[in-house]
């Protein structure tokens, strides 16, 4: 197995995903409405999580996978909290409409 190294492919896909993330950043900066900006942040978070896993495998350091797990959980939480703030205008208390 060791004579087949996929590390150059991992670096290439990593750079490709970073270029995609910067393209999504344009929607976050110029998006006409607030939900567009939150959506762009969510997409960039998912791409960054995959980039962290690729970085961990390309550099052969397993600690990046734990960083990716925590980053993914935080990105998901931030999207849910921002959606709730957009919908109700509040962060605490029960759901009322």
């Amino acid at each position, binding site marked *: 197995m060791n004579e087949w190294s*996929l590390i150059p492919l991992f670096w290439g896909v990593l750079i490709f995903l970073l270029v995609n993330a910067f393209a999504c950043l344009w929607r976050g900066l110029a998006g006409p*409405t607030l939900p567009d900006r939150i959506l762009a942040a969510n997409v960039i978070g998912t791409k960054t999580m*995959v980039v962290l896993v690729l970085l961990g495998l390309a550099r052969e350091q397993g600690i990046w996978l734990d960083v990716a797990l925590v980053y993914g959980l935080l990105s998901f939480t931030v999207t849910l909290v921002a959606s709730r703030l957009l919908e109700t205008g509040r962060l605490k208390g029960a759901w009322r409409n």
Partner: protein
Amino acid sequence: MLAAAHALIASLLVITGAAFFFIGTIGLLRFPDFYTRVHAVTKCDALGGGLVLLGLAIWSGPDGEGVRIVALIALILVSSPTAGHALARAAFRAGLKPWTREHPRQGGMHESD
């Protein structure tokens, strides 16, 4: 031979997932309003991230980092549709009108609202 098939399957999965990420990026940049962008992005992110991480998990094997990567696949498959649905529901309740062909200027919500 087996090592070659291993590397081939893993790299094909990773490249297919990266292509789905690219399709999602095009959808986010080109679609006319927020709801169509959610439609493009959540599915492509779940599928692209799942495929890339599945390829990496197959490459790492079950005794290396493969188990943690499978946990990350589960996280993506649960969180991406949930986040997209919560965001679309919040935008609809906040008063964002969907884009239609008859009212192409309707898909906007003023930033001051």
